[in-house]
């Protein structure tokens, strides 16, 4: 038997009994970042394939939301910093080994493009708002139009973007993949936490992010064909996610003791119920079944599986952030 006791007082906030410095803001940011990455990935891919009229919501409208999501995410990130006034230090350097540095620079690119993209589709956005009956949001499009009339530089930028949209689409596609994958790699880079420290976490976060993106489109699109296509894609993504999750847990179970203990958090430990019942059950399996039933002709409101997938994606990040910090090497 071995027992270790801390003799001198060290009840520093966020360190004992285990490191806990990241919580709700970081998990929410990881969710919003993944969701934005997913939406932009579909928008750019379908645009490049020349299907903007077949998938109008995906290509033209949905990116408008990504800008909002990314701005909320950025606010949460800055809110979570402990030395906030020095945040600009992120942009005085680029550190190739630090995923957070990659993320900071990627976010700059993504926020600029995710603003320009919807600005270049302002007519379609107006039409969508009218079709949906969201006339109260008219002020957004009106404001942008006024800006376009009054400010020459603004008009020039929007026209320039519209003209070279295809080139920008490739850049944005690349950035959105980095954004989606980096949120997972961010966590897996911490070898002090065995639960995070596995190479499947990056692909798993990307898949989950893209899945929430497809669910979001499926939920808000007003085009039946688009909804069906997204629901098929989402089913494939959910299946991939399940495969990755089982793979991740198998890998940890087959690893050294610290990794087995990490897996135990989900296999009998305190995150078992929330992980398997609420995330895997209600966030992956149930929406998969609902989407399959809808394809078979049952009438299921598309919002139901979509919202389940979105809540599942958020829960997954909360679980990974909280459980990961509890998984440590025994000192």
């Amino acid at each position, binding site marked *: 038997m*071995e027992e270790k006791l801390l003799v001198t007082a060290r009840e520093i906030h*966020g360190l004992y009994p285990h490191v806990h410095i*990241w919580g709700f803001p970081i998990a929410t940011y990881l969710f919003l970042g993944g969701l934005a990455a997913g939406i932009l990935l579909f928008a750019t891919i379908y645009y490049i394939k020349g299907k903007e009229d077949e998938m109008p919501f995906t290509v033209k409208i949905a990116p408008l939301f990504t800008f909002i999501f990314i701005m909320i995410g950025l606010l949460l990130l800055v809110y979570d910093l402990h030395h*906030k006034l020095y945040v600009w*230090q*992120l942009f005085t350097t680029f550190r190739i080994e630090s995923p*957070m540095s990659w993320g900071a620079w990627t976010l700059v690119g993504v926020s600029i493009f995710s603003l320009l993209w919807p600005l270049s589709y302002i007519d379609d956005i107006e039409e969508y708002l009218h079709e949906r009956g969201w006339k109260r949001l008219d002020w957004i499009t009106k404001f942008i139009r006024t800006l376009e009339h009054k400010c020459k530089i603004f008009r020039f930028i929007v026209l320039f973007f519209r003209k070279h949209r295809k080139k920008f689409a490739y850049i944005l596609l690349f950035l959105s993949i980095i954004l989606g994958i980096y949120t997972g790699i961010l966590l897996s880079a911490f070898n002090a936490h065995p639960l995070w420290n596995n190479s499947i976490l990056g692909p798993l976060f990307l898949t989950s992010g893209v899945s929430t993106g497809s669910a979001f489109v499926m939920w808000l699109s007003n085009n039946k064909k688009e909804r069906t296509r997204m629901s098929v894609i989402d089913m494939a993504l959910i299946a991939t996610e399940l495969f990755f999750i089982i793979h991740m847990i198998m890998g940890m179970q087959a690893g050294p003791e610290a990794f087995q203990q990490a897996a135990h958090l989900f296999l009998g430990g305190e995150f078992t119920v929330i992980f398997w019942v609420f995330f895997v059950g209600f966030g992956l399996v149930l929406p998969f079944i609902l989407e399959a039933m809808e394809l078979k002709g049952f009438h299921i409101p598309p919002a139901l599986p979509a919202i389940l997938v979105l809540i599942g994606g958020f829960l997954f990040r909360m679980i990974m952030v909280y459980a990961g910090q509890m998984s440590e090497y025994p000192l």
Partner: protein
Amino acid sequence: MRYAMAIEVNKCVGCADCVVACQTENNVPHGYSRDWIVEIARGEYPDLYMHFESQRCNHCDDTPCVRTCPTGASHIIEGGIVKVTHDECIGCGACIEACPYDARYFHPEGYVDKCTFCDHRVADGLDPACVSVCPTTCMHFGDLDDPDSEISKLIRTRENYTLIPEAGTNPQIFYLK
């Protein structure tokens, strides 16, 4: 130049002088500490064995904290000492998450703080505060690159271990059995 520390666990009585000396020398805020004492008890009654470990930043050779820092605030100075530049630190907590030893914490002013091996004293040819006050002289500080230094000889001749070597950090605090 490669600074390191060797601590004789059987000579340590857990008095915490090193902890207090560090807090005084480095103006560590009340309630915080850059080093700490762990008591380790092994065996079953009546066959019990116990020793103390004075723990702190391991000034690792392979530093996960410096690797994950997004601004370069965490860096390595001459002699392998890991330090944080306060004005470059944004307080994101990446290094705290990256450290397997929980050696880093948020200073009340927001930046991340940790053991500096008392580099201001070392530059003057002195030992770190914790080493210099140890009443049992169980702690030794010196240059591992010099084969004739006391610490090089101790690590060469005495059985020793490091903390969580499996994390792959190559720590530079050695505990002599």
